[in-house]
């Protein structure tokens, strides 16, 4: 299995740790985990180098997940990075908006490692 470099974007440091733990418990081999606390910080991380996947919260200060997705689509080198949105909100509208803006999937909190695996691994395709 290929080792993955992922970016986790969430304004809660605890939530970032929970997501990383869930990815590892889901059996993914992570070689590097980058973190950002909002969309603007995430865009800086994206510019730094190749990523296999981005997992991003929707509701964040400074730049939210939807704005991040829109900005991400303008970066040529980032267009093929799968993005999974993570949300506490039960709002279908927000999820639809995220998928329309380019997200490849979403996870609703609370989630289990099994649900993470189910949603994330199909998106990694050639990376695994």
């Amino acid at each position, binding site marked *: 299995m290929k080792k993955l470099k992922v970016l986790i974007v969430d*304004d*809660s*440091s*605890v*939530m970032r*740790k*929970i997501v990383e*733990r869930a990815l590892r418990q889901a059996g993914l081999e992570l070689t590097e985990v980058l973190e950002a606390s909002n969309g603007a910080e995430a865009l800086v991380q994206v510019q730094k180098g190749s990523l296999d996947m981005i997992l991003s919260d929707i*509701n964040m200060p400074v730049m939210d997940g939807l704005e991040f997705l829109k900005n991400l689509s303008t970066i040529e080198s980032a267009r093929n990075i799968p993005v999974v949105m993570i*949300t*506490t*909100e*039960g*709002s*279908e*509208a927000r999820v639809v908006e995220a998928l329309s803006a380019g997200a490849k999937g979403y996870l*609703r*909190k*609370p*989630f*289990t490692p099994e649900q993470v695996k189910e949603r994330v691994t199909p998106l990694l395709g050639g990376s695994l």
Partner: protein
Amino acid sequence: MTLATKTSSPTAVRFDPYWKSIMECAAVEVFELMAGLRLELVATPGGEAQGEQTAMVGMAGALRGMITVRCSRSAAGKLASLMLGQDGATNPAMTRDALGEICNMIAGNFKAKVSNLADHCMLSVPTVITGEDYAMDTASPHDSVTLALAYEGECICVSLITHS
């Protein structure tokens, strides 16, 4: 010419006593999925929530109010360690943040289960109070429901307080 609005205006959702069972379902699910705990409902000791750690998440829009999760510092530490590993129990900031996230997820899960709330109720970021010597007063009129979940001989209390 057609005018389209991006979001529809929220219609106020009134408190329903049946929400206690929805709250129970939402809370039990969060503790089970995030901490691997199967918690059961017990009678609230003394009729009021107790404990040194209280997490709160505000609600605005179709439903205005607050959801709180209150427990002892040791229970909060144990929950954090189940969610984050040993670091969660030994780092007080992580313990508080973990309880805040639990409260946030219970609030999100609750509103997802009540029709008309998912798209029309917004949640605040979580706030965590440390200490027992405080009283919470809410502007009247209001309704509330509290449930106590048994955890290792203690109670984790989850409350919903709504403005009518």
